[in-house]
């Protein structure tokens, strides 16, 4: 009889009663066939694979990672809270030591949701990984976290939330932004002034296959993780790199996902995108669950694998080798020249953000305090086409007194300004204030 060498938690929440709209890729049917396959394989009967029941996340959990405008109720539905809550259940299972690793197989996804949330971007409202990571930091005293985003789309939301955080290594492997939404995720996006080199983007060319993904993983991702030495590794396990996926152009497979997971060995994997709901997701998810549980995945493949999978072309291979070489030079061999900043210097940046799903246009003005003692306080003022005009002030965990003072000054000044709402996210004291 079969049993799992690694005890693995599974939080399965297909949200069979939720869709963005009836015809949207993010609809009720999305995980139906995955559930069928998982059930038919009998995975949940295997000793060592433990299924957990979801619970909704609280607004308090969301307030650690986001400024929701005007508030949480306005930009989330119950399904978002449950999807994020599913990740919290997975985190509890791992951090309480009940299982060695866990997979939150939940929807809707979250990695395009940024710190300021005016609505839905790229099918995401709430960044479920970030909500989970901040929950872990608050409840389990963990600081150093690595996120490896293997979704086909650049995890721009997660990148935004952790842009300034030197304690979070964010690595995104995705299809080149010149060829796919959201159009970002290039090597020169490498982190804010206090977290230089802690954001690593690996934009792979279209038609990257099993070989290319695993090459980038072995040559780049694994050494980066080793160097960073995280206490916990999170995988944003999007499945839209699949050769059957209808909205992307990559060439990955169920077998490839299983091998990737086996080598990466994330503590927690979280489902992100993946829209080949019939002929990819069922097999990819079975492969990931089995790989996490340490089971033999050599029999996992798509029924059309032999017929339709084409190994990666030579051009693509050369292209990837070159890219990886460049990135190694930058991020592993010290090629990335960190810009020097004066202690206490305030840097500003202006950005325009588009919410494709909800058609919202946002303009941000961000200030960050350069600091060598902590992650640095920052403030974001944001104006959206919805008529919202807000300011959010963030005090990081273990903030130094100078950063705290700066942040509180910004907050006090902001209160007197013309903003509709001013938020204070004080991670150190666990406070979230709205005025």
């Amino acid at each position: 009889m079969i049993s799992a060498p690694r005890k693995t938690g599974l939080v399965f929440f297909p949200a069979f009663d939720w869709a963005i709209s009836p015809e949207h890729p993010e609809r009720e049917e999305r995980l139906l066939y995955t559930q069928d396959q998982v059930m038919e394989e009998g995975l949940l009967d295997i000793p060592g694979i433990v299924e957990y029941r979801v619970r909704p996340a609280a607004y308090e959990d969301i307030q650690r990672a986001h400024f929701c405008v005007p508030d949480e109720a306005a930009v989330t539905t119950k399904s978002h809270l449950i999807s994020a809550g599913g990740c919290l259940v997975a985190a509890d299972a791992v951090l309480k030591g009940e299982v060695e690793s866990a997979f939150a197989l939940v929807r809707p996804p979250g990695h395009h949701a940024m710190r300021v949330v005016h609505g839905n971007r790229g099918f995401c409202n709430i960044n479920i990984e970030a909500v989970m990571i901040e929950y872990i930091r608050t409840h389990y005293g963990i600081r150093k976290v690595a996120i490896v985003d293997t979704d086909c789309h650049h995890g721009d939301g997660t990148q935004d939330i952790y842009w300034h955080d030197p304690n979070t290594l964010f690595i995104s492997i995705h299809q080149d932004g010149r060829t796919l939404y959201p159009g970002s995720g290039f090597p020169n996006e490498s982190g804010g002034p206090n977290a230089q080199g802690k954001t690593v983007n690996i934009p792979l060319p279209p038609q990257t296959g099993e070989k290319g993904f695993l090459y980038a993983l072995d040559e780049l991702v694994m050494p980066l993780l080793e160097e960073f030495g995280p206490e916990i590794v999170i995988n944003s396990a999007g499945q839209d790199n699949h050769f059957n996926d209808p909205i992307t152009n990559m060439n990955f497979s169920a077998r490839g996902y299983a091998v990737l997971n086996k080598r990466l060995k994330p503590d927690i994997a979280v489902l992100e995108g993946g829209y080949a709901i019939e002929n990819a997701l069922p097999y990819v998810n079975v492969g990931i669950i089995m790989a996490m549980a340490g089971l033999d995945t050599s029999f996992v493949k798509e029924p059309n694998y032999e017929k339709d999978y084409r190994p990666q072309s030579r051009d693509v291979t050369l292209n990837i080798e070159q890219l990886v070489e460049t990135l190694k030079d930058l991020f592993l061999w010290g090629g990335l020249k960190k810009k020097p900043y004066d202690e206490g210097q305030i840097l500003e940046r202006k950005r325009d953000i588009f919410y494709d799903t909800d058609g919202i246009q946002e303009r941000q003005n961000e200030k960050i305090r350069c600091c060598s003692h902590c992650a640095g306080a920052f403030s974001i003022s944001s104006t959206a086409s919805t008529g919202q005009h807000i300011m959010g002030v963030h005090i990081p965990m273990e903030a130094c007194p100078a950063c705290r003072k700066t942040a509180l000054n910004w907050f006090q000044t902001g209160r007197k300004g013309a903003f509709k709402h001013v938020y204070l996210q004080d991670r150190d004291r666990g406070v979230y204030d709205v005025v």
Partner: protein
Amino acid sequence: MILGLDVGGTQTDTVLIDGDRILKATKIPTGDNLLLTLRTALDGILSGVEPEQIERMAFSTTLATNAIVEDRLGRTGMIISAGPGIDPACFSVGPSFHVVEGCLDHQGFEAVPLDKSSVMEAAEKIQEEGINTIGVVGKFSVRNAAHELQISDWVKGLFSHVAMGHSVSGGLNFPRRIFTTYLNASLHELHTAFSGALTHILDEKNLHGPRYLLKPDGGTIDLMRSAGSPARTAQSGPAASVMGALALDGCRGATLVLDVGGTTTDMSVVLDGMPRLNPHGVKLGLYKTLIRSIITHSLGTGGDSVVQVKTNGKMTVGPLRKGPPVAFGGAVATPTDALVTLGLLALGNKVAAKAAMEELGSALGCNAEAAAERVLQQMAETIAQSARAFVYDINAQPVYTIHQVLNEEKIVPASVLIVGGPAPHIAPYVEKALGLPCRVPPHYDVANAVGAAVARVTAQVTLQADTERGTVIIPEAGEEHKTDRRFDMDQAIAMARKTLCRQAMTIGAEDNSLETVITEKQVFNMMRGYRTVGRNIRLKMSITPGLIPQWKRSL
């Protein structure tokens, strides 16, 4: 009159019921020979009764359970078609297990055709080993039974019995389908012989009314119809006690039902007269199956369990049993000895029982009566602890829709119903340990036999329509129809109901007890790209466990 019989591990109980009255109840020890035990029990209860008066009879037996646990299963070959996923060799069962080429996907479309030569090769190997019973199981065969039917058709000439996977249950779970089919096949000969012999005995005794066996879901099945899926009659004992509790009490509200026996305490929950059913299936011996069952938990603590006092002064009751209680010639102190010592049970050797309690008392620093009191408290505490965990686990079962998460229906038992021999004596202690009111119904000591007697026939069908594939399938009934794009939920419900009632009548249901309930109902639009290609309808309908209308007890 109705006759009910329950074969337990140590005792076999029989009752005779007329309307709302238990006319007669007998208890005899369960012997090694099941048929002999049945014959003896029938002789006893029928003395002075005209056999023509018995209009119906039902049996809860241990035949299948014991055959599985004692590994007395018939030699059975298995032919499996699987496709991608877990290596099917992981689920190898029986002496001759073969995987053949061929594969269906989750929608039931053929991904790889069956390879006839590998099927025939497997069949011949099985035959060469002198095996004449086989099981045929395919992955996703409940979505399309074609491969199983084809294999079965190719090889049926070589074997005396072929069991197929798709008819076992409409549920998805390939390993469980393999094990359930294996059990059905390997129990077939034994069960056929048993039902033949029992029929013979009943004929001989001029008992000509309908005859039923009890199933683990608390429903019954016609004796002669049970041979098609004999595994369905295993593990019926715990279901008998739940149905007995339901018959004797009604179990309004959320009721925790405890059946305290000699070696174990079985627990279950009943919600407004409806026992909780296991969504996956019952475990029989080592095998997880797709057979529907009432959720029960068996705790190794009963009246005859060993009582021990650890060096740290902590007392344990169970999970071991070492022979009879001291009062009945045994060597080790048991809760029964505590009852005898306290004068709650006027049976056996009180002096010996008291001596055993005194010995416990010396380790605890108290007299025999106080020790006996402690034993019963500890027994109740052990039961209470296990019951709390049992209820917690039921409430922790995963849910898959927002509606279910937000409208969570947690079971919080409001009262406890206790049946089984020691019920009235242990009830006050359990009441205290659980902090819930405890009731003991009349005839608590033969509740299982009553439960078997008055349980109605249950059945279940799973309908899946896929208008893209153009099919609607009800695997339990072996039905597959072509359908068009307009097939909708209303049509699905009508079709499922018709099939369910027909299925139930076939296995012995009377037309006055065909209450159907929809237990699962989902419909999905199937999109490919931005185009709707069809509708996916999933429907489960069942006749849930309940009591026959003849049971008119005014509660």
